[in-house]
């Protein structure tokens, strides 16, 4: 692929001035002016940008370029789709595969629209062969349907095998005082419209310092989480993709966990009130999340079944889709209602005023001491419960272990910035493996239960849908088998988690 260099030109210059200058020194050929309208896309959490790419749509063509070199990283693709949202909206091929890898289940969101008027010029050698391509771009930013002049620049594009000529013209431009622009146009536009690439991530990204009080540290964590909650509301309402709700719920869960696990930091009655309000809010979104997960799993479900049974799942997914539509309406209503606004507003007001509130048992202790104590206690709890689990232990005991693991995980994440990064990430990785096992076990059992419930309803409604009954039966069997093998793996996973090396790190950091 060819390299592209962008150069700034003085405001007073236009394309004519430069073309005149260039033609004095080089043999040129002018091509007709073209106008392009481009829309730039990324996901809400900047998945393309963080991997070094940006996606541009120009009419029916899509271009994936590198943020560093602006060069295409994949062959452009034509797609007769006006508003592609997900990777699966694109035609088969390597372009789609790349999007799949980076976007996963997140939707593309248009970031901005620009119009570019391009004067195209070819620099030729004595054989009249093109050796460098030059473009003068007048860029207009489209805002509220109006095109406002934004900037202009020159782009040089290499032609393979003609590096020397490229260097020559670059040198000549530099001598004219025209310097290379270090930022890609799309970054300049983002800057101008106040968007910061990479400014959202669902990860808990707070920096604490050891000399903070527990209350100070806790407020930093809670304010961060509140911010995440608020940022995701619009995306849930517009139903852009499923991850807005997911991130929203995770932030609420983390908030509740902060309140219950970092003990003695706030006055009890206030803490209990918010814990309760948030629990209610969380609960109202449970069903929508469940439905999202089922619908996202559709392909997995189909793959568990032989071809001839697959159509039997359609009625199930039709019903789930209908229910989801209703459920989404409900959640939009909840998020628009007064009670939601009130809860969030009073929570925000509380976080902003807490420093004036009276001291409580732990509120003014150094965060470093207490975080150690909490984490070590949570770790011991996991070890203790885990050690009692046998192959024949009931599901309720696994459930308990799962809850304790979650507590430990959140504490490790809350206080991660106080401890050496490498060791914390090792501990989180170890713990995550155990959590994945327990989480899979739980998910598989929830899925079986709800399929069984569905089976009971259709059995009474339409008795002759044999194919559906068979398909659901097949699914339940397959899920059950998966669950069995997950269960079998638990003992080994837990042994790995509780091994000495891991314990030593816990001892060293937190005991």
């Amino acid at each position: 692929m060819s390299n592209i260099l962008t150069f700034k030109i003085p405001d007073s210059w236009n394309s004519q001035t430069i073309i005149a200058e260039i033609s004095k020194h080089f043999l040129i050929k002018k091509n007709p002016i073209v106008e392009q309208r481009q829309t730039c896309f990324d996901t809400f959490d900047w998945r393309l940008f963080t991997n070094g790419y940006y996606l541009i749509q120009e009419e029916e063509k899509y271009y994936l370029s590198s943020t560093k070199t602006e060069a295409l990283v994949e062959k452009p693709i034509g797609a007769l789709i006006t508003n592609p949202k997900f990777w699966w909206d694109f035609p088969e091929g390597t372009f789609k595969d790349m999007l799949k890898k980076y976007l996963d289940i997140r939707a593309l969101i248009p970031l901005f629209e620009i119009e570019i008027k391009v004067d195209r010029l070819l620099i030729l050698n004595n054989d009249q062969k093109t050796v460098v391509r030059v473009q003068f771009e007048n860029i207009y930013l489209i805002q509220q349907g109006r095109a406002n002049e934004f900037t202009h620049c020159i782009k040089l594009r290499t032609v393979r095998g003609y590096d020397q000529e490229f260097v020559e013209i670059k040198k000549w431009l530099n001598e004219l005082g025209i310097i290379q622009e270090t930022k890609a146009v799309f970054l300049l536009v983002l800057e101008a419209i106040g968007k910061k690439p990479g400014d959202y991530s669902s990860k808990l990204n707070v920096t604490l310092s050891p000399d903070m009080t527990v209350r100070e540290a806790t407020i930093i964590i809670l304010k961060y989480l509140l911010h995440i909650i608020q940022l995701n509301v619009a995306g849930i309402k517009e139903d852009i993709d499923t991850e807005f709700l997911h991130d929203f719920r995770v932030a609420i869960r983390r908030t509740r966990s902060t309140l219950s696990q970092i003990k003695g930091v706030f006055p009890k009655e206030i803490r209990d009130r918010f814990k309760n309000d948030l629990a209610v809010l969380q609960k109202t979104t449970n069903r929508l999340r469940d439905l999202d997960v089922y619908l996202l799993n559709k392909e997995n479900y189909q793959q568990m079944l032989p071809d001839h049974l697959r159509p039997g799942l359609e009625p199930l997914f039709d019903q789930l889709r209908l229910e989801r539509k209703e459920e989404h309406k409900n959640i939009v209503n909840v998020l628009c209602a007064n009670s939601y606004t009130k809860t969030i507003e009073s929570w925000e007001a509380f976080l902003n005023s807490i420093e004036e509130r009276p001291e409580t048992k732990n509120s003014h202790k150094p965060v470093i001491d207490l975080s150690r104590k909490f984490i070590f206690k949570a770790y011991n709890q996991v070890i203790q419960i885990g050690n009692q689990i046998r192959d024949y232990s009931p599901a309720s005991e696994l459930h308990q272990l799962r809850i304790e693991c979650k507590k430990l995980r959140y504490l490790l994440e809350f206080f991660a910035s106080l401890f050496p990064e490498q060791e914390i990430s090792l501990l989180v990785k170890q713990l995550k493996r155990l959590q994945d096992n327990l989480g899979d076990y739980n998910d598989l059992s929830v899925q079986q239960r709800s399929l069984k419930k569905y089976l009971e309803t259709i059995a009474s409604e339409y008795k002759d849908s044999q194919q559906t009954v068979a398909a659901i039966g097949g699914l339940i069997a397959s899920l059950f088998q998966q669950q069995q093998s997950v269960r079998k793996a638990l003992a080994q996973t837990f042994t790995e988690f509780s091994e000495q090396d891991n314990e030593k790190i816990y001892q060293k950091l937190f005991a």
Partner: protein
Amino acid sequence: MPIIALYHIKGGVGKTATAVNLSYLAAQEDAKTLLIDLDPQGSASFYFRVRPSKNLKSSSFLKGGKKVDKNIKGSDYEHLDILPSTLSYRKLDLHLNSLKKAKIKLTQVLQPFENEYQFIFIDSPPNITLVSENIINTADYILVPLIPTTLSMLTFEKLQQFFKNRKLKESKIIAFFSMVEKRKKLHQQIMKEVAHQNQINYLTNHIPYSADIENMGIRREPIFCYKPSSTAAKAYIMLWNELKVLVSKL
């Protein structure tokens, strides 16, 4: 990534014009395309106004790798690169002779480029030599332009015989008629006769004899750049569409 070689024992049958125009058409469809000019006369390179940057020796060409890579040049058209020919390619045969595994040497040279390009075209020199045997071994398809004359068909028979003798895959051969003159009865007759033989793949579309094609030598660009709506340009498009389907089955 099919490798398509334009080849015939006989010269002057429209190989180069076809290689130039078909590789242009492939690139126009956004497929990354490489045209390798292995004919020491360098006509394809001349049409694209491309010269080899350093005098690439045939011995270093056969070593492959960076030396070859460095000599690939971007054409004036998006997605189309050229590996230009040099006079020293006339010694390719000599160098091949002195190498072990001489018959598959070219395959090794081109192997690194097969992932980069969606189509590779080779414009081959005429005659039967070690170079042509290499090309036949390496290419997935041997595209043979035939002028519908008795002599041209006789040489084509020789080519088929050569394939048989050397146990080369005759199924690689795709033939089509080139420089066809509508008014010549003999042309029409030979084309008709061939239509009933089915041991060789014949394309149904053919390229007419045309002054517009001959002008490529003066214009030094694919026919689509100066006579896009000529009969000849349309004939190349039809030929490409037919060929594309065949070679995409690979």
